[in-house]
């Protein structure tokens, strides 16, 4: 369970999230949509405290994950990031082998013995449906993979460090339809073990994969009407998205 309690995030004077209060259920997929600049990415980044080092960035209020305030001074930010993994819009693999990419975080942040790395790599690569495609080329550079494969590899790398929450910032925006479908299928398969937040611009995608769709507007979140309600009242979608 993720709870935003009267949470405000601002860059200098400009408040991106404004006194936001909202509960997100665990082990589910929540899609977040909204116009460009509405704060979708900021919402994801505050959950793993990726904006901490931005000089004029500041917050008010609380975010609780599993009942713990993630901004408490005694909270270890590195442990938080292991538990709250983030997948970016464009896949970023390191120019090292596929295998080394998968265990990149594991080497530093877990105490898993080195002899168990191959089994772990196989497990997470199977989870992201990539094992069959790369099992014979694990020592090749990861940069030789296609964009879709690279995105699944970054997901495998994140899963290897054992996160509870997955934050996905438009992970399919740079992919072809086939790779997009593969990632969507994969994310649906992961929701039983992870709480997933998925930022997207595609409303159809949001409804097809998510248990709940939130619209971020003027720094606040509102639930998007369910598809059936939108069919009955077509103007309800526009009302939520664009009207104050």
């Amino acid at each position, binding site marked *: 369970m993720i709870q935003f309690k009267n949470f405000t995030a601002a860059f200098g004077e400009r408040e991106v999230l404004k006194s936001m209060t909202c509960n997100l259920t665990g082990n589910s997929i929540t899609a977040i949509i909204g116009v460009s600049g509405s704060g979708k990415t900021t919402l994801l980044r505050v959950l793993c405290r*990726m904006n901490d080092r931005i*000089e004029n960035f500041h917050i008010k209020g609380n975010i609780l994950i599993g009942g713990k305030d993630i901004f408490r001074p005694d909270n270890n930010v590195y442990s938080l990031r292991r538990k709250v993994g983030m997948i970016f819009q464009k896949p*970023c693999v*390191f*120019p090292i082998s596929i295998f080394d990419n998968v265990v990149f975080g594991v080497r530093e*942040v877990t105490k898993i013995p080195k002899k168990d790395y191959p089994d772990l790599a196989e497990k997470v690569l199977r989870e992201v449906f990539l094992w069959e495609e790369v099992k014979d080329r694990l020592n090749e550079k990861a940069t030789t993979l296609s964009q879709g494969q690279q995105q699944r590899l970054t997901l495998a790398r994140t899963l290897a*460090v054992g996160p509870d929450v997955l934050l996905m910032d438009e992970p399919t925006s740079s992919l072809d339809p086939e790779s997009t479908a593969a990632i969507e299928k994969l994310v649906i398969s992961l929701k039983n073990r992870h709480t997933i937040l998925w930022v997207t611009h595609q409303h159809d995608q949001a409804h097809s994969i998510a248990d709940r769709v939130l619209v971020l507007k003027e720094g606040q979140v509102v639930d998007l009407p369910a598809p059936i309600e939108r069919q009955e009242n077509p103007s309800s979608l526009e009302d939520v998205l664009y009207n104050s």
Partner: protein
Amino acid sequence: MTAITIEKVVRVFIAGITFIIIGLLVSIFSIMFIKGFPAFHDDFLFAESKDFGRAGGVFYQSAGTLILMTTAVLLSLPVALGSVLFQTEYLASGKFKTLLTQLTYLLNATPTILFGLVGYLFFGVYLDTGVSWVTGSMILAVMILPTLQVSLREAVEALPQKYREAGMALGLSRSSQIRRVILPQCFYGIVTGVLLGLARAAGETAAIMFTATTFSGIQFPQSFSDPVPTLQTHILILAQEAAHPESIAQAWGSGLVLLGLVFILTLMAWLIRTRVVMESEL
């Protein structure tokens, strides 16, 4: 005057300036080559100098130059890299970062003779290292520190943000981030910076002339308190002996060796930097 005419005039003006710069460089290289090449004989690079430099080669002078350059870079590199990592990875305040950057540029612009003077008073007199290759290396290390710092900072800052964020998102601590992400990804940039630092050290003369070098009497330093012969000192002393054409010829030859050394280091730095740019565009 129409806009097109103005553009043509500006283009001709800029092209003229470019050709002047290229011309200067080509002239220097040509003169050095024409004057210096006759001094090259079979073992000019590998023979000991003889007859007070009027004959023989420049082996020990080249070795002395390399000893000073390498020691200076070895001393300067950890300090420069440490300050770069502090500035880019740990320091949060943008204003303080800017202040540090400006101070580095200021240090870079300080006349080198001042480094020599202050360096000799501090290392040579206060720390009692005397006129020795150790004193010279330490002075050179301080002198090339800003050059090295600027080159390394540029290399680290050029690292695409996506790599840093990928490491952060996996929960890497800052030290792990430096060890696993920053240093490996910036490796070629750091090597480029080191080569530029070496080239800068090779080009410095004033500060080491009276603090670290000798013209004759020493081949390789036998202790920390020995001075070393260097190409720079060799050129200066020989050039003062205008009455002896052999000395002048040897000075040109030594100059060509020094120029070649700096040219090779700069060329290597440029080639590696080109590779870094190509990789960052992948």
